[in-house]
């Protein structure tokens, strides 16, 4: 019997009907749908044993302790370490990116040598030979720029450069550089530390203490601890500054004042305090009093700043009647502040008797150096990098033969950016130890990539702003993802090649020696259960007996010490104040540019962390254009409307922007976001908006000679 057409059709029809009674079509549809959810490029959630390890953040200047969650030994997320005094469980957007940044497309994957306009990968042996050769020839004319404000790596670098013949060791400008210079001008010893935890009334002059100033994560925790939800606040915060930024937004009072007027406002408050009988035994008090009474009366201040006399009288009253008032002065965007406003703010602390008192300002001692020939922190912070580079650019300062750049990006993160880049071009041999391909690395002749903090040993020693001395370890929790090395180890190897004796063979040895010296320091203790601010308030410090300090630090706890360094004549520096703090009025044809910085857009060294780009709102960046903020009154005066595309001009540079009308900016001020406008890095950072730091013009502060750039006049068209 053959299979004819009808039989075949019957077979097919029966099969078709039968198929409906089998799992074939239904299962295939279901599985095909699942199959489409599992493309090869979709990241997979790692499976395996979950554990947590501790370390400290180096990408974030706040230096908080981290608790890293790992799955099968691979780090997946970074959270705050509840046991660490600078974290207490909190973490910044930047510190949180420490894990993601391991796989950033901008990472430098091996040593690179510039050939023409591009880079070629080379081996570490070749890189070290090249560097030894070039540095050997450049002896006596080597400079170094570091952006690490808390690491012992600075000891290794400064000792190495010093022994090669240093023409300058510079830290990237920050709040710490300003404070160090100002403290020196006041005749003070030590690093200024602020005890927010024990303060009950805090006057913040400009400093964005909850975002970019000092130990911002810890500052937030201190603020929150005194203001539990639903309960009456146990502290009073007053912010004086040009915008209602992330700090001002949560303060009890915002007093609008331009960044150039911060010193004037401080001395205006001093006038009220002096009138109320405030006095001081600190050197220079009488002259200070004369300076304040001579030019900073209520009407003088009102004329200069527009602030009504009763407003400042109210602030003075709040400070004078508080049990533990504290005054903090800083830059609204973390750099460029002069000594004048800082000293004016510190003068209020002196008038209020807040030096070295719980809830006040502590002059913290430096931790002892361990590398022979290393600079002290105060000496490192004393350099003026923008002035040096500007001198090189203009030919007034000879260019060094070689420049080492560690964790810094001066070609992007300084004012008058074009001038700075020009200066860098004049330096014949430049080496970058960057982890990411930043603007400065892209200009260098050699790049020796540094392992990221989760891949290396490192440390965090008393970040600026901390109210107590602190030391915590950074430790590798995984092998380097790429062919990178710890830069300090590279320097130590190089030192041997060049017969420079730095005493140590590895950075781990340096850190262990550092920890040994800490163990010998009297008054130090492990912050475990009892926190340093509790000790400052009178609780006995726990004894540190028999503990293996290295092991304790490796387990995520921090070594801390409370107590000031002995002072030898800290005074008001009134002569400097008289020159540096002067009421000034901006001509009406221009507006004052005051940038603002946020940790979610990274630092000049990190670029915008890839995951954080999604948190940038459409009022800050749309496509490739950034927005600048003006209030409606300023916009009206300039004839600008919401969403208009404008050109900002300053320091000989133009930048494009769109207008965002924002009433939290004071009249006459344009507020611009920093962290954008990169020309290097990766798709998450490159060509996104403009770098408004390039519009900021450097000025020399009268009296101190410091470079200042907290506010610049710009034209908008």
């Amino acid at each position, binding site marked *: 019997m053959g299979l004819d057409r009808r039989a075949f059709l*019957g077979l097919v029809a029966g099969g078709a009907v039968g198929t409906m009674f*089998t799992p074939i079509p239904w299962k295939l549809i279901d599985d095909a749908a699942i199959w489409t959810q599992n493309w090869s490029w979709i990241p997979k959630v790692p499976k395996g044993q*979950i554990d947590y390890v501790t370390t400290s953040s180096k990408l974030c200047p706040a230096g908080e302790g981290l608790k890293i969650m790992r799955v099968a030994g691979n780090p997946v997320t970074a959270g705050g370490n509840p046991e660490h005094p600078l974290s207490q469980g909190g973490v910044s957007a930047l510190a949180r990116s420490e894990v993601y940044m391991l796989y950033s497309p901008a990472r430098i994957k091996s040593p690179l040598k510039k050939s023409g306009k591009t880079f070629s990968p080379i081996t570490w042996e070749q890189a070290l030979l090249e560097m030894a050769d070039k540095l050997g020839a450049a002896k006596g004319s080597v400079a170094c720029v570091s952006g690490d404000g808390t690491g012992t790596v600075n000891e290794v670098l400064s000792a190495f450069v010093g022994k090669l013949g240093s023409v300058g060791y510079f830290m990237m400008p920050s709040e710490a550089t300003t404070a160090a210079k100002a403290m020196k001008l006041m005749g003070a010893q030590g690093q200024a530390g602020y005890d927010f935890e024990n303060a009950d009334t805090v006057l913040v002059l400009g400093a964005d203490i909850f975002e970019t100033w000092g130990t911002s994560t810890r500052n937030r925790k201190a603020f929150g601890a005194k203001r539990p939800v639903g309960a009456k606040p146990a502290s009073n915060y007053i912010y004086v500054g040009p915008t209602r930024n992330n700090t001002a937004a949560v303060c009890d009072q915002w007093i609008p004042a331009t960044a150039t007027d911060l010193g004037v406002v401080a001395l205006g408050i001093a006038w009220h305090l002096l009138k109320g009988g405030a006095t001081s035994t600190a050197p220079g008090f009488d002259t200070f009093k004369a300076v304040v009474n001579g030019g900073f009366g209520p009407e003088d201040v009102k004329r200069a700043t527009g602030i009504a006399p009763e407003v400042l009288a109210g602030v003075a009253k709040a400070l004078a009647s508080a049990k533990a008032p504290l005054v903090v002065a800083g830059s609204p965007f973390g750099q460029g502040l002069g000594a004048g406003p800082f000293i004016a703010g510190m003068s209020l602390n002196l008038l209020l008797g807040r030096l070295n008192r719980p809830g006040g300002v502590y002059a913290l001692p430096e931790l002892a150096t361990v590398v022979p020939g290393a600079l002290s922190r105060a000496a490192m912070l004393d350099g003026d990098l923008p002035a040096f580079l500007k001198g090189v650019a203009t030919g007034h300062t000879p260019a060094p033969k070689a420049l080492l750049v560690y964790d810094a990006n001066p070609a992007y993160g300084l004012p008058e950016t074009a001038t700075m880049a020009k200066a860098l071009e004049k330096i014949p041999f430049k080496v970058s130890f960057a982890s990411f391909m930043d603007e400065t690395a892209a200009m260098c002749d050699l790049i020796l990539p540094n392992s990221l903090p989760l891949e290396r040993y490192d440390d965090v020693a008393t970040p600026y702003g901390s109210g107590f001395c602190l030391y915590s370890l950074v430790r590798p929790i995984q092998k380097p993802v790429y062919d990178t090395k710890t830069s300090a180890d590279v320097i130590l190897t190089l030192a041997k090649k060049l017969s420079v004796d730095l005493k140590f063979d590895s950075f781990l040895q340096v850190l262990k020696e550092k920890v040994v010296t800490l163990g010998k320091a009297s008054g130090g203790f492990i912050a475990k259960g009892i926190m340093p601010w509790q000790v400052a308030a009178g609780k006995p410090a726990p004894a540190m007996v028999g503990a293996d300090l290295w092991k304790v630090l490796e387990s995520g706890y921090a070594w801390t010490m409370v107590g000031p360094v002995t002072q030898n004549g800290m005074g008001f520096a009134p002569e400097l104040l008289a020159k540096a703090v002067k009421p000034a009025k901006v001509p009406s044809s221009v507006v004052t540019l005051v940038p603002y910085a946020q940790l979610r857009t990274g630092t000049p060294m990190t670029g915008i962390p890839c995951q954080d780009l999604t948190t940038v709102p459409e009022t800050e960046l749309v496509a490739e254009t950034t927005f600048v903020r003006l209030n409606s009154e300023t916009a009206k005066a300039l004839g600008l409307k919401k969403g208009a595309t404008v050109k900002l001009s300053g320091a000989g540079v133009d930048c494009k922007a769109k207008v965002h009308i924002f009433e939290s900016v004071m009249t006459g001020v344009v507020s611009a976001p920093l962290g954008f406008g990169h020309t290097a890095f990766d798709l998450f950072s490159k060509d996104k908006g403009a770098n408004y730091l390039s519009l900021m013009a450097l000025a020399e502060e009268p009296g101190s000679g410091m470079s200042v750039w907290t506010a610049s006049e710009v034209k908008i068209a």
Partner: protein
Amino acid sequence: MEENRSNSAGGVGGMVLCALIGFVGVLVVGWVIFPKLLYSQKTQPIRFSHTIHSQLGIDCEQCHHLGPDGRFSGLPTTESCAECHGEETGDASPNGKEIDKFVKEYAKTGVQIPWLVYQYQPDNVFFSHAAHKGFECTKCHLDVAKMDNPPAYHENRLSGYSKDTMKMWECERCHASMGTSNACYVCHK
């Protein structure tokens, strides 16, 4: 003509017969052959006997426990297994050989055993064992505690998931019967 009529008459019956054959044939293919084609069969890298370990008095929770924060430890690590099986036994029995295989390939090298997990959920599902700790493990999992040999692992060639991975309708049915929310965000974050 005669032949055509004959074919026509027999044709209807033949057609019905063929349809029946087609119907039954496809049922056989769909229910017997198709599953075998759809799933590949794999064996565990180590023939782990739950029976022997439970007979030694080891509780399930010793290897599969909830962490203090509610997270589920899932599978024991190579290091945990090596706490008891750190050295080769030299035993020529099948079990001894299997232990030695573990020691040689995993304990000594520190490599994690690539266990084939019968019920891993897709990455877009957030399943908390802590929220389900009131249930017997065997409500959802194979009762491996009574097995001397681990059962075969059947992997769907198309989706890549295990045959035993619980489907969403099963989760929903249980949630509904327990009065628990079936809102998307309960399982999908």
